[in-house]
């Protein structure tokens, strides 16, 4: 992407005023997206993201600069501008960059950019037809097709030179159900680090039907009652519970500054002994997988919590310096426009041995949250919230009726201790995770779990 000699010159320039580490990140990315609304292809855009980020460390302080202009003279100018924030002497370095080989966890069969756009439009039509014809209450359907092919080069003054290619594919259906002037939305959006062969694995009609099924369920649902109750959270995207309630607080960005509720708790019991949680950047073709992270460190399978005991944080290079710990291959960023920080890849609670039926049968009164929407957390306090996209009231061990508009709130540290059943049906769901280094693809996941007691926010005071 950029000549090795130029990279070395830029790294030298970056350390010309002091500092003890410099890094260059070159990104060249093809993006393609299509959107069909009401069966009509409204949008079809393709383009190229292109830029270079340069980072300097001076002990625990960091400087970041980025530009779109990758000419040698501009890169050296930008590196020197960044360096000018420091005011000491150059340390003696001799670079001999050697390209490193990596393991490929994300083999690609068919690059999406090589496929005729007509085939992609056909995919959208099929999903649209299936979603629209699902039921008469479905009043509007939007289907989106997304592809990206990102090539990165990362080099640093430790002698690292590595490249990675990330190809991702996603298909999104959003259905609106209308009844008596009321509208409710359902959506479903599978994705993977795969090429066009992704569509050999999923059936787009099923995706469309699933989105419409959720919308239809909601429009016929009553408002959710409020209160503190047991909550059964189903598998797949239900894993956003762990992601928000706990995953973010395990990120070194917060741990290193002692502002995370989990700081200083390695080796301690932080969750119910039923909980084992893993972040795995190496999962084959996983939505959040990469071969190396955005600092060039190979990704790993990190056991975060094992049988309730805190085993590891998610660590990037800079925060690793603060904590005196090695990177766990968790430095990620949206693009060259962001300095990387510690982030999740594919994070999930491992399977236990209960079944969903057992959980429902053992619940006298509570909420069964079948599909969760997004959520957020304050990593310092651990307070989280997320939306329930599809929920049901459980009474006397049986599913009573669908409810809508529920929000789950609680505290991450406490909720982990309150998990009293873990299912045997682990599945992963795809999300976009937003934080200080931008919006990145991440898998969340879990089997069905039951939380003994959680605050459910709804619109009805009681039943």
């Amino acid at each position, binding site marked *: 992407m950029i000549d090795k000699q130029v990279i070395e010159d830029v790294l030298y320039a970056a350390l010309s005023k002091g500092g003890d580490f410099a890094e260059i990140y070159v990104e060249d990315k093809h993006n393609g997206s*299509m959107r069909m609304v009401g069966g009509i292809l409204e949008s079809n855009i393709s383009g190229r993201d292109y830029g270079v980020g340069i980072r300097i460390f001076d002990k625990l302080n960091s400087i970041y600069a*980025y530009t779109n202009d990758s000419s040698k003279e501009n890169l050296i100018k930008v590196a020197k501008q960044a360096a000018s924030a420091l005011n000491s002497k150059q340390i003696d370095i001799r670079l001999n960059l050697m390209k490193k080989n990596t393991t490929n966890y994300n083999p690609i069969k068919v690059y999406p950019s090589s496929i005729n756009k007509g085939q992609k439009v056909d995919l959208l039509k099929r999903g649209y037809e299936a979603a629209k014809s699902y039921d008469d209450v479905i009043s*509007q359907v939007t289907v989106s097709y997304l592809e990206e092919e990102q090539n990165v080069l990362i080099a640093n003054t430790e002698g690292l030179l590595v490249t990675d290619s990330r190809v991702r594919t996603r298909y999104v259906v959003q259905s609106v159900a209308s009844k008596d002037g009321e509208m409710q939305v359902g959506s479903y959006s599978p994705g993977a680090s795969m090429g066009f062969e992704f569509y050999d694995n999923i059936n787009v009609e099923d995706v469309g039907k699933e989105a419409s099924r959720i919308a239809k369920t909601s429009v016929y649902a009553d408002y959710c009652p409020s209160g503190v109750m047991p909550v059964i959270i189903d598998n797949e995207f239900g894993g956003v519970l762990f992601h928000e309630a706990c995953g973010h607080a395990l990120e070194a960005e917060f741990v290193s*500054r002692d*502002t995370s509720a989990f700081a200083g708790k390695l080796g301690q019991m932080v969750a119910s002994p039923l909980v084992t949680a893993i972040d795995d950047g190496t999962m084959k073709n996983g939505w959040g997988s990469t071969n190396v992270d955005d600092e060039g460190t190979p990704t790993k399978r990190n056991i975060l919590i094992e049988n309730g005991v805190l085993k590891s944080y998610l660590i990037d290079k800079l925060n690793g310096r603060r904590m005196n710990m090695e990177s766990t291959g968790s430095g990620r960023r949206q693009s060259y*426009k962001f300095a990387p920080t510690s982030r999740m890849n594919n994070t999930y609670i491992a399977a236990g041995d209960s079944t969903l039926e057992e959980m429902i049968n053992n619940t006298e009164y509570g909420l069964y949250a079948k599909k969760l929407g*997004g959520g*957020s957390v304050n990593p310092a306090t651990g307070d989280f919230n997320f939306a329930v996209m599809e929920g049901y009231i459980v009474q006397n061990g049986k599913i009573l009726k669908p409810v809508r*508009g529920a929000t789950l*709130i609680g505290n991450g540290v406490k909720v982990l201790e309150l998990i009293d059943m873990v299912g045997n049906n682990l599945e992963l769901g795809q999300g976009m995770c937003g934080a200080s280094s931008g919006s990145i693809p991440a898998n969340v996941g879990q089997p069905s779990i039951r939380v003994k007691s959680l605050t459910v926010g709804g619109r009805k005071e009681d039943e």
Partner: protein
Amino acid sequence: MDYRDYLNNLLNKAKENMEDVEAFLIKDKEISMGVYKGQLDKYSIAESGGLSLRGIYNGKMGYSYTERIDDSSVDKLIQDTLENSKYIDDLDPETIFEGSDKYENINNFNETLGNVPVSEKIDFLKKLEKEALSLDNRVFAADACVYQEFEQERYIRNTKGIDLHDKVNGAISYISVVVKDGEDTKTGFSLRIIKNFSELDHKQMAKEAVENAISMLGAKSIKSDKYPVVFENKTFADLLSAFSSVFSADNVQKGLSGLKDKIGEEIGSPILNIVDDPFLKDGFGSRNFDDEGTKTSFKKLIDNGKLTSYLYNWKTANKEGVQSTGNASRSYKGQISISPTNLYIEKGDKSFEELVNSISKGLYINNLEGLHSGLNPVSGDFSLSASGYGIEDGKISRAVNLITIAGNLYELLKDIEAIGNDLEFGIYGYIGSPSIKVKSLSISGE
């Protein structure tokens, strides 16, 4: 680089293959700094941008973009734009605009902002952090103490004759503090969105963040019930932001807004006025022309409770046979869509104290979470994690957290009982509200 020649060449070449074409070019500059424990621990500088080409072929609009703005990109941009247009089957075609007769000429670029030396900005942050840490011994850390400044240049050029350029700038500064009292941890935040560096007052910001955090120590939930609620101005602005898409004519036409078929109808309290004001002094959304090159205009969207207008670009306006309201909006990576300029609820006549005094038992809410997930702009339903304070006998009492508020936007607008005189803009900088008193909302707590 001389963009004029580059864009001319691009448009001339593209015009050989397409009916009409338009180039949209953005150049961004950004500088950002963060202080931690008295040191500049984060510093970043950036110059970037992107170029979009859109063009009409057989009556259909294609788009493509690149961030590599040099001669090597010209042919691929043209080829992709042409290719992308072929699959569009939109029945309401997009058009390329020939320009308005006349534009306002308001300057939205403050030269003085960038002229303040970086060292002064760093000193400000150091003072801000130091002040926050000194205010109370329960302040554990300032986990963010940041100043960010941006400049954006915009060029729109097309084969219908538009040749427009403008430049805006601004800055934000914020501090987030963590306070601890035993096992109890709380955070507090204060944010300023400015165009003049002299508006930043480190003492005021530190005090606000620390008071927000300290006052939340010992917070507890409350009994689930319906309560009258006063929303802090910035917090209501953020709630309004999450719902601002309901004013978009595009969402209305697609059946994705609850305001469909409601023009002329009473949709809010008779004291409610919402405007879209592109000429607001120092407004973050202030612009003389929109992203299609159409002149912007001041308009009332809700006039004494009645819905008077939607926000239009040309595609949606043509569909209804009306004029664009100058609300076309886009990034170089995307298609033309619609967004407000500066959208805000006009201030009322009550002081914040009067709003609180009028409630014997209720809640004051100054924080909402989950705005990107806990609400549904289509139905208007929301259920959001919230925190704030109880109101007892007209006075703010104890801190309240771990509650959710639930309701429906369209009902909420009708339930507004009083509006404060303290208009402020929220976290996005271009959506504002005064403090708002609402008759009743469902609160879930204990």
